[in-house]
């Protein structure tokens, strides 16, 4: 495709494009610059583009992880550092679990078809639309009184796995259907058991699907607030929960809070740049066929 030619467009068209790009990433850019400003610069009336960028806000947020003592801090507040660790652990573990059991289930549903595909797809669709707000009351009640896992990371991980599974199964199905059955039959001829066929033949072939699914799963676990807020205690709070908690105070320290927001936004931004193709595939799957 190196020889591809592009149509010429008129200047107004490019002006529109630039406006759109500015509108799309302007707020994100604004958050980035604010996080690099001192409060004096944020409060000043002139909306100056010129300011001395400083990492001080990030030092304040991450002081727990630093090997040196930032001189502007009198006392290090470990809340955010702890939340970041929690978010990472919860995000990674719940993504791993969801993907492992999700791929297995999707594979079984596609290959062994012992239930109608329709039944499965309407169930996954229905489960997919359940908003976290609806799960708030029952999950709080059950986790606290019956399972006794409220306030622990395990409890939060379990909700996220359950929330993400329907989508993961649904999207992986569409990838597994495309794996030629002959490949699997050949492997079985050579004496591979069902688990070997699955792990050694099917899994490598659906890597793009797994990439898309893992990004979506991690994103939900990383970004979710409501359930984490209801289920976590002081030691298992995730980053979104700490951000909202620090917002309720009357006097907001915009620099620091924008730095924490930026830190929360960085992983999804990296994923977007690395794997935008897979993300778009995942988004369009189901709505647009072919």
């Amino acid at each position: 495709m190196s020889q591809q030619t592009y149509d010429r467009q008129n200047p107004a068209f490019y002006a529109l494009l630039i406006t759109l790009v500015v509108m799309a990433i302007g707020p994100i850019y604004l958050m980035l610059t604010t996080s690099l400003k001192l409060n004096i610069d944020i409060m000043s009336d002139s909306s100056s583009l010129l300011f001395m960028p400083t990492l001080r806000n990030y030092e304040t947020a991450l002081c727990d992880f630093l090997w040196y003592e930032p001189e502007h801090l009198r006392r290090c507040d470990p809340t955010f550092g702890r939340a970041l660790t929690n978010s990472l652990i919860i995000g990674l573990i719940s993504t791993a679990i969801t993907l492992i059991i999700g791929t297995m289930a999707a594979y079984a549903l596609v290959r062994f078809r012992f239930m109608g595909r329709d039944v499965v797809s309407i169930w996954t669709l229905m489960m997919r639309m359940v908003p976290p707000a609806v799960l708030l009351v029952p999950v709080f009640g059950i986790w606290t009184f019956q399972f006794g896992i409220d306030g622990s990371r395990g409890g939060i991980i379990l909700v996220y796995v359950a929330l993400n599974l329907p989508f993961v199964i649904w999207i992986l199905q569409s990838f597994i259907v495309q794996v030629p059955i002959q490949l699997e039959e050949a492997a079985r001829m050579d004496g591979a058991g069902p688990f070997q066929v699955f792990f050694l033949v099917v899994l490598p072939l659906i890597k793009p699907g797994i990439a898309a699914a893992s990004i979506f799963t991690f994103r939900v676990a990383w970004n979710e607030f409501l359930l984490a807020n209801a289920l976590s205690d002081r030691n298992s709070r995730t980053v979104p929960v700490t951000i909202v908690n620090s917002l309720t105070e009357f006097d907001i320290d915009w620099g620091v809070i924008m730095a924490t927001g930026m830190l929360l936004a960085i992983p999804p931004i990296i994923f977007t740049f690395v794997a935008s193709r897979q993300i778009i595939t995942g988004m369009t799957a189901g709505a647009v066929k072919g």
Partner: protein
Amino acid sequence: MSIASTNRMTPYLFLAPAGLVLAFALFYPICYMIYASFLDWNPSQRIGEAEFVGLRNYFKLFGDDAFRESMGVTLKFAAVVVTIEMFLGVGLALLLDRNIRGMSVLRTLFILPMMIAPIVVGLMWRYMYHPTVGIFNKTLKSWGFDGIPWLSDGSWAFASVVIADVWQWTPFIFILSLAALQSLPASAIEASKIDGASGWQQIIYIKLPLMLPVLIVTLLLRLIDSFKVLEVILVMTNGGPGLSTEILSLRINRTASEFRELGEAAAMSNLLLIVLLILTFTMFIYNKAQDARAARLRAVEEEV
């Protein structure tokens, strides 16, 4: 165990973990919630100690002005947001469906707002709407206008929330309709060009009708998601001022955590779930009908 019986067991082994998790952590909670909506239950009680009150929670809700208002806000929000986003998204897709350099970069930049945590989106907009340090009021003031009470006046707050949501989700519709546009049969567009259709005629008579199935699914997906919006509004206004931006999921959260009425919150969740169920079923049935129609057309073609 013989090989044959292993093979027979395999599907169940593969399905078991997912099935268990879904049963315990999703299906069971939903049933639990339906049951809880008939109870007078506060968070310090075990569910067994809660009193069974039948449909009282529901009657209370329908008699409650605050709930009716928040239901109204939810519906208004969904309708306004989805309409604006559909027009903008589809319009932009039609406009940008050209062979230009850097389209993939553009698409990447456009999905950023959707990938970032809703909490952060709310944070960014709350900062931009800030009466003194926010960029909107700063700019207005430097031009000599008065600042606008973005988040502190009822109707402005609603508009502000809508703007933030439009910013975040228009790209979703844009990307889906662009994908739909690019998978249209080139022959139909080619034929219309030969017949001398103008750009507008092509859009109205060829492109839009052919895109319609995808557009309807997109609309329903977005509509379902617009009932789930919570964090952005929570951070920006927390439902205020008054109840002007208190959408249903926010009200559920408040009823559960502030008013400590778990039964009532469960009843509200149930109502929300019913709305979403109807939408989802519509989508599923529509998809089925489309598939059936495609199959029939194919059968007709084969006969000829």
